[in-house]
């Protein structure tokens, strides 16, 4: 489609992950001219290997935190301990490559449930939490959850249960991925204790489609790039096809420093540094920011203009507020091979197939032992990440002392050879609260000379209560299946790979940054499509919701640009 315009592109998208990919895909396939700016490299299936040095020891897919640090504030006594990430174990980057962190997700895919869209109405206010209902309902988003199943590729099986979300299609378009024998053991244990484990949907193709191969069950999935294309990353599932449409240009290694605006308040362009270190500028009719919640807030705050002295889209002062993560608890238990016959033990040793079990029975907790009726969450059962260096290094410390010599070696033999660990991941709301936010650090700047994001990680005590409750429920299952060394716990330390909030959407411009279409209340040509829009992030991993919402917003942008031509190729 040709548009008469003096701008370089119809749409400029900053960030290529789960928030940016759907917009690029839909707009390009509708014939609009799209450019995507991504600060990382463009790696493909040919560059992703099962290499612990690359993914995890050297963090090769992340920006260098020595030159691009963040600053974190964590609770210490009555105050806050402030540290640069380059001087601590924190790293707030999650995937600086084309496709963003969706390349490295495990793809445990959950929809939010209708209740998540109206937590304030359903449960009332919570002291110390800043709750708000969503300006849209589950029904508004459902068609897009369905679309994600087909376009990103979600495998699974629908099983009736009391918290099953309403669905417009009967079942998943792809059958479940292969299951590890532990799945049947979890099912049996749940039956024994009167709870229900259901298949956990995955953003992983169980059969080839869309030019992507099916899962090859290498045993190395979460945290690593996918070499088969089965994992539904934004790159494999969306951007490759957007580029193939002929209407989308992806500019890798292009770091956006700021967005400029004029006296009328309209965005006039984007300033970025290209792969050769040259300062560049680009403009478009519409701008979409999707850099993940922390970096999105930072970019807006760094983008002051004549009409935006506090930062772009920040008249309300709410940009950066309500930072959220996936709250919850965790745990593990161990199945000893010696407790099984040789044939079963051999099957249990197999790394490849997935456990893929989740419990939703406690999505709402109605248990007098817990207290008043409250929002709960899901409990996923997953394999431990197999990376041997990281696992072995975790055995080096015992209490206050180090293990070494034959003591360490015998421990490693038992740990690696003697059994398999099952991990519990329990998810609850990270309640938005006044002590969880992002702002610009007053002193620290990155390699481009721009102030870096400073994030405070305050948590609400309810996170811990619900997290402990759910993790303990998961531990009951592990004990019922005969697992040993079962532990469960909750923590206020945020899992920084699942980040949301900072640009909440809503109907009231005084209480939200974005409107119901995820367009800035005050900047006419600005949309935000990563997890920043969420007033609460659900009690489950929320990547599916980010994808679905970005598809929804893409429809709104297409409408704003003049609509979709009748001859648009459809999926």
């Amino acid at each position, binding site marked *: 489609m040709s548009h008469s315009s003096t701008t370089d592109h119809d749409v400029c998208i900053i960030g290529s992950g789960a928030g940016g990919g759907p917009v690029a895909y839909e707009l390009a396939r509708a014939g609009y001219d799209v450019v995507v700016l991504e600060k990382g490299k463009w790696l493909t299936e040919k560059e992703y290997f099962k290499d612990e040095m690359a993914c995890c020891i050297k963090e090769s897919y992340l920006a260098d935190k020595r030159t691009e640090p963040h600053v974190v504030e964590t609770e210490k006594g009555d105050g806050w301990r402030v540290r640069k990430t380059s001087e601590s174990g924190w790293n707030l980057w999650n995937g600086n490559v084309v496709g963003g962190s969706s390349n490295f997700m495990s793809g445990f895919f959950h929809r939010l449930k209708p209740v998540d869209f109206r937590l304030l109405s359903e449960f009332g206010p919570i002291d110390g939490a800043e709750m708000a209902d969503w300006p849209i309902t589950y029904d508004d988003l459902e068609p897009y959850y369905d679309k994600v199943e087909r376009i990103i590729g979600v495998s699974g099986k629908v099983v009736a249960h009391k918290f099953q979300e309403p669905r417009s299609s009967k079942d998943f378009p792809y059958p479940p991925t292969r299951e590890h024998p532990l799945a049947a053991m979890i099912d049996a244990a749940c039956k024994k204790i009167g709870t229900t484990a259901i298949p956990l949907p995955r953003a992983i193709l169980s059969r080839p489609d869309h030019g992507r191969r099916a899962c090859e069950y290498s045993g190395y999935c979460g945290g690593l790039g996918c070499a088969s294309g089965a994992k539904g990353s934004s790159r494999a599932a969306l951007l490759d096809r957007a580029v193939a449409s002929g209407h989308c240009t992806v500019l890798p290694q292009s770091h956006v420093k700021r967005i400029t605006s004029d006296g009328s308040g309209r965005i006039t362009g984007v300033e970025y540094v290209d792969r050769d270190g040259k300062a560049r500028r680009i403009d478009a009719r519409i701008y979409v920011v999707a850099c993940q919640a922390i970096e999105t807030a930072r970019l807006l705050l760094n983008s002051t203009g004549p009409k935006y002295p506090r930062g772009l889209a920040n008249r309300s002062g709410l940009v950066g507020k309500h930072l959220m993560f996936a709250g919850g608890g965790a745990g593990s238990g161990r199945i000893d091979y010696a407790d099984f016959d040789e044939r079963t033990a051999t099957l249990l040793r197999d790394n490849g197939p997935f456990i893929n079990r989740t419990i939703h029975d406690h999505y709402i907790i109605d248990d007098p032992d817990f207290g008043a009726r409250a929002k709960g969450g899901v409990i996923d059962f997953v394999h431990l990440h197999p990376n041997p260096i990281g696992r072995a290094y975790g055995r080096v410390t015992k209490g206050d002392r180090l293990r*070494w010599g034959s003591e360490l070696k015998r421990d490693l033999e038992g740990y690696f050879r003697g059994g398999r660990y099952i991990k519990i991941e329990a998810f609850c709301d990270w309640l938005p609260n006044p002590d969880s936010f992002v702002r610009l650090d007053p002193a620290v700047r990155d390699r481009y000379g721009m102030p870096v994001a400073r994030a405070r990680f305050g948590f609400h005590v309810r996170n811990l209560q619900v997290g402990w409750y759910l993790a303990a429920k998961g531990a009951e299952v592990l004990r019922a299946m005969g697992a040993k060394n079962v532990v469960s716990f909750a923590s206020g330390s945020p899992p920084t790979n699942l980040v949301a909030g900072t640009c909440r959407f809503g109907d009231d411009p005084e209480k939200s940054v974005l409107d119901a279409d995820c367009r800035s209340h005050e900047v006419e040509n600005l949309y935000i499509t990563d997890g920043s829009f969420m007033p609460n992030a659900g009690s489950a991993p929320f990547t599916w919701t980010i994808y679905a919402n970005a598809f929804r917003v893409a429809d709104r942008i297409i409408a704003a640009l003049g609509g979709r031509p009748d001859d648009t190729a459809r999926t």
Partner: protein
Amino acid sequence: MRRRTFLLFTTGFAVMGPTAARDLPGVALLPDAALGIDDHHWRVIDRTMDHLFPDERNAPGAGAAHATAWLHNGLRMPEVDDAHRRFIGEGAIDLERLSREQEKKSFLELTTARREAVLRQLELRPGGKAWLQELLRYILEALLSDPVYGGNPGGTGWAWLEHRPGFPRPPKEKRYFLL
């Protein structure tokens, strides 16, 4: 150091093996003087690694994993800062000093039992535990990383722990520093 130089070094290391080393087990080339660690203290580090993770008949140790060479090569990588290089070198100096103070001998001359005693004393000193923990980290990297990086020869560490690597595994030209 430029990446190509490192590539040649690791390739040489992998091909030549420890027999080409001067007298540092596992080091194919002379220690890089730019790292600021002299030969004597490289030997102290090498002996420490052997003690922390000894070679056994059915269980590879630091020697079999080429851990000293791994550490040496790792310290030469461009992403490693000088403060870390100094930390490793100064840790060896502290250990040798402690040994001479406590045992009146070089760490290299101690029996296994006395090495253990000195290392446990070092663990309690400021920075001592962190230094030992770093050496253990390097040992485990050498033992359990993909053999394409020059450690874990023939997958000996994986075989010992019955660990199944994923696939596809990285080829030489796609090691992390070449991506």
